């Protein structure tokens, strides 16, 4: 029993580590200008993606945002195609047309991510409607930041999902920041009781570093969706270590302090399970090296590709 628990934890840690090291590689590569695409790094928030995706099958459909590297990997997207996409190469998952903000991997149920805040929330609701009409036991998941809640379309989506009892899981990745603006300056309501007022079950996870708790909660909520229980709403508190967009740190810019991050580092699974991590580093590194090599070798798209897939 202890052993299986360990295996599971190892898998979760491995994925978390993989995402962390991929993004650190992006940071490393960024000055070379090989990656010419704005990157919204998830460093610090990876456990949320890893935990949520653990119980999902490839048939379960996930919609996420411009902060999407972690979900691409956690949902099972291929690394070489990811790297090549960041490089803007033909071998990228979208042939270089997507870049960092529009990752997708339909074969594993990762739908297109969008750079427009809140814009994929209604997509999940629509996908859930299609599943329900078909009588399909698919679960649909939408990930969004705390800032997305201020958009009207969030309300329209919640209302519709509740009205039609759709199999959709709303997940708010709450890092308490929209770019540099804290939650309390932007929101005049408590988002949890507010969602509950829409007749939607709500769950809150205070520690976005608790991989097992996130994964177990996700499993339970997805099961409820599949058994026709109607929409679910989950908020996970988490913390972004890096600047909003770009590879740097920004603790000197005045809107937040390093002390905040240190609080989160205390439960960061990659520090907490440092010995496990150590054992995994070599494998992770070689996986990433292979992906980078693939990207480097992949040709750039050209004129012949410019006008394909417009319509």
């Amino acid at each position, binding site marked *: 029993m202890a052993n299986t628990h360990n295996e599971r934890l190892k898998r979760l840690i491995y994925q978390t580590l993989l995402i962390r090291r991929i993004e650190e590689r992006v940071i490393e590569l960024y000055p070379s200008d090989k990656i010419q695409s704005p990157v919204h790094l998830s460093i610090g928030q990876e456990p949320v993606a890893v935990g949520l995706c653990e119980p999902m099958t490839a048939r379960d459909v996930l919609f996420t945002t411009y902060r999407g590297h972690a979900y691409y990997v956690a949902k099972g997207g291929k690394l070489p195609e990811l790297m090549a996409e960041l490089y803007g190469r033909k071998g990228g998952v979208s042939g270089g047309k997507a870049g960092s903000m529009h990752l997708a991997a339909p074969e594993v149920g990762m739908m297109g991510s969008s750079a427009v805040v809140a814009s994929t929330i209604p997509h999940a609701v629509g996908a859930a409607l299609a599943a329900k009409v078909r009588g399909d036991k698919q679960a649909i998941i939408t990930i969004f930041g705390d800032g997305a809640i201020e958009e*009207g379309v969030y309300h*329209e989506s919640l209302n519709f999902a509740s*009205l039609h009892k759709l199999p959709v899981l709303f997940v708010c990745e709450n890092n308490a920041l929209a770019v540099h603006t804290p939650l309390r300056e*932007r929101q*005049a309501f408590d988002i949890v009781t507010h969602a509950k*007022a*829409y007749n939607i079950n709500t769950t809150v996870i205070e520690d976005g570093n608790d991989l097992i708790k996130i994964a177990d909660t996700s499993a339970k909520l997805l099961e409820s969706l599949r058994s026709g229980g109607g929409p679910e709403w989950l908020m996970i508190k988490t913390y972004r270590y890096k600047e909003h967009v770009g590879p740097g740190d920004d603790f000197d810019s005045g809107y937040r302090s390093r002390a905040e991050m240190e609080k989160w580092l205390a439960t960061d699974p990659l520090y907490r399970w440092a010995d496990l991590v150590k054992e995994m580093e070599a494998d992770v590194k070689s996986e990433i090296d292979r992906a980078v090599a693939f990207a480097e070798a992949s040709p750039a798209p050209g004129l012949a590709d410019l006008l394909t897939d417009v319509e």
Partner: protein
Amino acid sequence: MTRRCEETIVRIYPDDEMKTPMHMSMGQEAVAVGVCRALGNNGDVVASYRSHATYLAQTEDHGSFFGELHGRVNGTADGKSGSMHLADIPKGMLGSTGIVAAGIPVAVGAAFANKQNSPGRIAAAFFGDGATDEGVFWESLNVSCAMGLPMMFVCEDNDLAVHTRKSHRQGFNSLVEVVKKYRCSVYEDDTNDVESIYAMTRSAIAQIIAMGTPAFLNVKTYRYLEPCGTTMDSDAPYRRAEEDAYWKGRDCVALQRARLLANGLAEKDVVAVENEINAAILASVAAAKAAAHPTPQQLYYGVFYEAP
């Protein structure tokens, strides 16, 4: 006065001299009159396309009202606006729009300006329950609560968006329960009584000024006529006979008339006021019919900002 104006419309609309889609307020007048009287001269209002009552309550000007409906130069906008876009900026009637919920953020903007420039002045947005389906309503509510604006949201809750009931549009049980999650005060009224709505609005205004936070008023009401047009549609499948009877049994104009009589006013004095109103309205209609049509040149006036 509002009721009589609309009754006049019902009577003369078939003549086809007022070529504009009418969204009638009939049955719902108490909301606009109660709120606008409570605001007095110290409010700005933005209405929806169902704006007759709001316009008349805020401006008391049926002369330009009928001019506009007739598409004549003595209208509120030289006849360019018609029924859905009535406005009178000096009187604090900042406009009405044919796009559901589109006026709400405009009122929030007015509230923002009032907070800076005219302390004590309040902006009110009138809208139907259908407008609360729109995301922009929630954005407006959040922004005005977060900024602490002197803003009043007035929901004219007739349970219907065109022919669709709230139960087919709303995933929640009660709008006010959701709105209560915001930093604002919430008021409800189900009396159809203009004086009760007036009193409620007075407390809301006091609260807005004392607390520096918005107020949300949910006023239950009932639309007598079809959603757009001037005829009764009591037989339409979405109507409910008992609901119709219930609301017509507590008609806001009849209610107020009965109160005036009970308060000791003589029947003949009430009739005299009614006759005065009727005569004034007939004069307005006649003036509108006599007024000139806009000239072809007017087609292009006001498209762009022109420096004075």
